[in-house]
């Protein structure tokens, strides 16, 4: 079995995996980081979004061995010293979730959006979230949360 090593949320990790193991399975099953969800088997829902070398990717659409040597950030890696990341805080404040299933992927996607475009308008936010599906909220409060986070991250 191939062995993979990567940095996940700042921690160096190594594991033996079958070649066909998806990154999301490695995160959930080998590392017990179950904050990253699996909501479909067609790469459509976005519940599994994590950052690989700073870019948001669908971790169900990548093999663990393809992330060998990479820096991976999952939802568990966002809060620092017990303080929620401003994006997590904004989702909480604005009621940007109901059941919460889509939330880890939404938050990781949204953080990547603000890295690339610190001032997105509503249309840009909605377009960016095309690959993240939410069955509960109707997206309204998610968009509001991202706008709030954008404002608070500007300081």
């Amino acid at each position, binding site marked *: 079995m191939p062995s993979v090593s990567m940095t996940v949320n700042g921690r160096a990790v190594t594991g033996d995996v*079958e*070649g*066909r*193991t*998806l990154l*999301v*399975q490695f995160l959930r099953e080998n590392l017990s980081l179950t904050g990253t969800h*699996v909501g*479909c*088997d*067609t*790469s*459509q829902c*976005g519940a599994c*979004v994590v950052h690989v070398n700073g*870019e*948001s*990717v*669908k971790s*169900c*659409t*990548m*093999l663990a*061995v*393809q992330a060998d040597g990479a820096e991976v950030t999952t939802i568990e890696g966002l809060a620092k010293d017990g303080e929620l990341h401003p994006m997590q805080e904004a989702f909480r404040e604005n009621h940007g979730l109901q059941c919460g299933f889509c939330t880890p992927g939404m938050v990781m*996607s949204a953080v*990547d*959006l603000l890295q690339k475009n610190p001032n997105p308008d509503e249309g840009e936010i909605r377009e*960016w*979230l*095309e*690959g*993240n599906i939410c069955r509960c909220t109707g997206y309204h409060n998610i968009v509001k949360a991202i706008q709030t986070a954008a404002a608070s991250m500007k300081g």
Partner: protein
Amino acid sequence: MADGSYTVLAGGTDFYPARAGGLGGRPPESKVLDITALEGLRGIAEEGDSLRIGALTTWSDLLHAPLPPYFAALKLAAREVGGVQIQNAGTLCGNLCNASPAADGVPPLLALDAEVELASQAGARRLALDDFILGNRQTAKRPDELVTALHIPKLSARARSTFLKLGARKYLVISIVMAALLIDLDDKGNVSKARVAVGSCAARALRLPAVEAALEGRPFDEDLLPRIGDEQLDPLTPIDDIRGTADYRREAAVALLRRGVEALLSQEAA
């Protein structure tokens, strides 16, 4: 690779969904060759009188690249391919190799007269895109071959293009009809080249020579619109399916092509 028993993996955005077996299912054991570490295959560069797009160039790479105005159609198509994460991982060449009749990349690349560069131990060869995609999920690529690049011939600074897609909703949708139009103008403002391709209306996207002939040599103005008609759609063989009937698709194709010419005219004015 040489014995043709490997499946090539680029962005994986067609590969994983096609193979996952049930919720969270692992792709079955098979010999997979991941080519994503071949950095030399990624990126867009000028090469004499053409532009070379490496096989690992993603849709996001394309969107961020400074390219001449006649790449507008391809950039519009890039925004249609899934959401951001799919565009970050998915490659143009993966879209062509997968050869779906509804692949968004194919009509714009047909209009750009793209050539596909293939390599194997037996050597390299180039095929016109029109000869590369043979039908629904069928290409001329041999199992022992890798697609290494696309080549796009350069056009004049006056050339421009556009892409239109008709789907049942705005996002994440398989198209009912899509069209790419590209025109180049001579110094008198007449259409010197017209290249028109329509997708989702046959087993593969097709150029429409009769439409092109109706536009070429004409002044570039509103009078072009009524010159596009149903009788020029001949190579298309649209089907009836859950997304639309064949008749609806023909009508939609004509409407989309006229709208495309309008879009090109307004680009010109801008």
